[in-house]
């Protein structure tokens, strides 16, 4: 019997819930406390939990290091890209009102805020994962008696 059986079963239940909660916090940033920073940290916490219980090698297969590098830059690109898109559509840099023709309900603002916070989510998630991979990948294996 695996010595970490209870942890494995419970974390297999909980890790998808944590990721869904992170997405919920991001999409409800308009209506309740939340937004991109908190959501990125919560999704990173889910992946770190997976790495702690199932091992760093399995975590690097699930979330590879190339993906982490790409997402860190892609988040900043998404944020800046939203600004450039508003420039192309005729408004100022990061002027969200031009993103959607419906001015009465300010739909452009909703779209702009969602995209921008998504960029923040990607960058925060990948930077947390990068720091964790850089530190935890180096840790020497502690033999059982040394604690």
């Amino acid at each position, binding site marked *: 019997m695996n010595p970490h059986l209870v942890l494995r079963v419970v974390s297999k239940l909980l890790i998808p819930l944590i990721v869904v909660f992170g997405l919920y916090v991001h999409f409800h940033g308009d209506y309740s*406390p939340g*937004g991109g920073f908190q959501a990125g940290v919560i999704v990173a916490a889910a992946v770190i939990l997976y790495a702690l219980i199932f091992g760093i090698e399995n975590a690097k297969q699930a979330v590879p290091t190339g993906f982490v590098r790409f997402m860190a830059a892609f988040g900043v690109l998404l944020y800046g890209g939203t600004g450039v898109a508003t420039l192309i559509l005729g408004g100022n840099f990061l002027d969200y009102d031009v993103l959607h023709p419906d001015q009465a309900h300010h739909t452009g603002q*909703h779209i*702009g805020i969602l995209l921008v916070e998504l960029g923040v989510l990607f960058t925060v998630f990948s930077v947390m994962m990068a720091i964790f991979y850089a530190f935890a990948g180096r840790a020497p294996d502690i033999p059982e008696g040394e604690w």
Partner: protein
Amino acid sequence: MTEFDWTQLLDYALMGMLLAVGIAIVRLRNLFAAVMLAGVYSLISAAWFVTLDAVDVAFTEAAVGAGISTVLMLAAMLLTAREAEPVKAIRHWAALIVVSVAGAALFYAVGDMPVYGDPNSPANAYVGMDYITSTPNDIAIPNVVTAVLASYRGFDTFGEVVVIFAAGLGVMLLLGLNPGKKTGGEE
């Protein structure tokens, strides 16, 4: 003699706990316990931010400070040592002098600060009230904090994201994401 405000007891209790945990972190030599107490410090700060009605800040503090930061500091502690080395007596005195001077300056500056919730303070008088009154017309979302963060002050948040990215880039360049492999130029 006004009615005693019982909710102030909560503020005093939380600040007292923060003080006790801070003193314990400084006095402990066992680094494992110090890292755990740093996580406890972040959690009590998050509770204190909730009593100050700053829920977004409390959310971020709890997630980052009590969650990710504790794990990362534990991973760093595993690479260094379990116990802090003892400090020479002369450094105690130097640190005490520096902290006393800085603390005295801070206490002197507290007398000039505005009262909590003052409507004429600089944070509330200039653009603060304008953001609150014009958010329903301009942006139409209920959460004013997100409106200020992502729409009114979008440039500042862009700068924040770039700073976070630069920090991650520094870690990736200095340490590398695959430190187990013996690659050529990594150290």
